[in-house]
């Protein structure tokens, strides 16, 4: 019998695959002059080989095994248990590819040998808890290649030309079928290794994400709960906050206040020369500082406090339009101050009280943002 027909028969027997999922059958490529592109689509978009739509026994077994792998190990013993489970799965994939190798077509035997060697490296990465797990190394490159070498920029597996040579026409003859089946076996095993390695990497990403959630929450506090700032104040705060350009950092421990417009209720005790004892007055916080946390390593304080040098502006009254004084800020919401101003009967002390109106009346964008993100 024809050598290719024998190979194909054995491959079919060894794979023991049920009928391929719709869209995953090799005959879908019949009639196409772009078998490389179409096969890649079946692998990548179609999830046909090693993915969700692969009915192959090995794929099913590996995906079932991965569901049983210990999640989020919290001790070295648990981490070792998780890694041992992953190593066992990886060994089964390695064993499967070793068994397949002898019936794979020509150059694909070389590719299988290369892949098995790379699996050995992947096992070492899993054994060493501190090692980088090179999941990205197991992704196909869009030039239809695998295993990019840093030193040369070349790939250890470059299968497109092999398929082109085996499948020069639109149809699928025995040689072409053997090449395609061999590539499918390679896709399947590489994809399954990728899924094994993605497991611990995903947990690392989740840990990083949890930290970023905390960091983002601190920034939300800075922008939405700490004292509001005009755009020039954001610039002025560069004087106390200048992290490196390639860092993700916490917000500053405090806020510089500079030429901040606001309003306060003013109490004038000597009210003979004023229309009312209590008036709403415009204030400008000329310069000040609001401390948000006390030590750099701490979380934001429940009692942030600050102080500003202020000027009040009260036009169209007797006496001076301007008063000057100090204002203290508590919990980012309440401010108490005193100024000295000539209200029409000589200079006197006036008392000020203010609250952050924006917190009362503006919908917090954080609520909108969280709702939007939770919709995904």
């Amino acid at each position: 019998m024809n050598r290719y027909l024998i190979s194909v028969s054995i491959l079919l027997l060894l794979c023991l695959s049920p009928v391929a999922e719709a869209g995953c059958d090799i005959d879908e490529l019949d009639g196409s002059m772009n078998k490389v592109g179409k096969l890649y689509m079946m692998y990548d978009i179609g999830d046909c080989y090693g993915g969700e739509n692969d009915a192959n026994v090995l794929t099913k077994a590996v995906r079932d095994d991965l569901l049983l792998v210990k999640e989020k190990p919290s001790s070295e013993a648990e981490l070792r248990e998780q890694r041992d489970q992953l190593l066992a799965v990886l060994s089964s994939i390695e064993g499967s590819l070793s068994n397949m190798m002898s019936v794979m077509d020509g150059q694909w035997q070389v590719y299988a040998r290369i892949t098995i060697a790379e699996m050995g490296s992947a096992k070492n990465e899993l054994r060493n808890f501190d090692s980088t797990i090179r999941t990205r190394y197991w992704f196909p490159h869009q030039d239809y290649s695998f295993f990019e070498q840093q030193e040369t920029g070349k790939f250890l597996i470059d299968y497109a030309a092999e398929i082109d040579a085996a499948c020069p026409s639109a149809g699928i003859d025995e040689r072409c079928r053997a090449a395609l089946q061999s590539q499918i076996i390679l896709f399947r095993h590489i994809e399954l290794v990728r899924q094994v390695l993605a497991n611990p990497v995903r947990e690392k990403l989740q840990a990083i994400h949890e930290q970023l959630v905390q960091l983002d929450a601190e920034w939300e506090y800075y922008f939405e709960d700490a004292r509001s700032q005009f755009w020039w104040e954001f610039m002025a705060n560069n004087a106390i906050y200048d992290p490196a350009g390639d860092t993700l950092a916490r917000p500053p421990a405090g806020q510089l206040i500079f030429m901040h417009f606001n309003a306060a209720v003013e109490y004038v005790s000597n009210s003979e020369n004023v229309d009312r004892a209590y008036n709403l007055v415009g204030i400008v916080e000329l310069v000040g500082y609001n401390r948000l946390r006390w030590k750099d390593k701490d979380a934001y304080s429940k009692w942030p406090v600050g102080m500003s040098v202020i000027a009040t502006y009260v036009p169209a009254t007797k006496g001076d339009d301007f008063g000057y004084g100090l204002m203290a800020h508590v919990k980012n919401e309440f401010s108490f101050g005193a100024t000295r101003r000539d209200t029409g009967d000589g200079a006197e002390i006036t008392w000020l009280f203010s609250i952050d109106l924006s917190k009362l009346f503006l919908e917090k964008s954080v609520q909108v943002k969280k709702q939007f993100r939770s919709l995904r």
Partner: protein
Amino acid sequence: MSQHILFFVHGMGEHDETWHEKGLGVFKSAFNDFELTRDIDFDSAFHVVPIVYNDIFKETRERANADFAAFKMAVLGSIDASDAASQQAVSGELDKYADLIGAGGDNFIWTHILDVILYRFSNTIRMGVDVSVAEQVLASISNHQHRTWSVVAHSLGTSVAHNTLNSLYNTGFPDAPNGPIGKLDPLESRCNTLAMIANVSRVLQRSDAKVYESRVKPGSASAGRLCSYYLNARHKLDPFTIPKAFDPDIWPDSATFSTERYQHLRPSHISFEFDDLSRIHDLDHYMENPRVHVPLIRSILGRRIIGAEEYRLAKARFDSELRSDSVERARSLLESKLPSPSGNWRNLLASIKRLL
């Protein structure tokens, strides 16, 4: 199912979670134009994630505006209510001052240009934005079964995307609230395609995070490069992208450059009328051109997914549909507004104003 995650990072201005839909819609419809992509169920193949960070600009602006409004109310309240002339005069002066400092009603300067200025020159705004974007990216890639992830960044978003990716992979989080944690490793997870549409990252770069020199480059993950493909799209008539243009020569190195992992896409089409010149900068306008969406599709789904002949025909078809007197008039007007290539961020802001 393993999907490709596609992040969209917006530019300056007001954006909500639907901001990307126009550009995405154009990209999706392009799939109908090619043999192999026509049958792809886009929504099954891609998980689209719009990244939003302008809530920071909006919230801070609204809070400051509320404070100024209170100041104005207090000042006017001090004036005798029956003295209408004084009330009006003072109110007018305060309104002028409010417009000057951005505490008046929203206008383009304060909702768009100030975003650019603050992101570039305020360390707190920049860091808050970068952390927010980083959190949104990690939320998806850590909790989603995906094969690859790519980023489509537009305008100011190109600077944000560069800085955020650079930071995520460089120093980690040395002072994270719950103790230091490690940085991301490109060998474990990294961006497949970084599509920088209307790329202004160079004109907005900081001296300690220069875009030609950082690790945000295409190439091998083993060499520490942070993306597989870098698509730099700069429309020939888009004035935003001219000052200090991102236009490297044989970048990042000759070996990588020869593999087309860095591609400089230079669309030159116009598909709008002469009275809508700002469209030149829009994401969907860029995406319309096969010279932009075909390289993007190929970089994610494989080089052969769209053959050379199909691509040639798509370009010819697209180019033939764009001819009219109005379009030529728009072209002339745009050409007259182009800034100097040797300009800096000031020229960029002047370009923005001239265009509107």
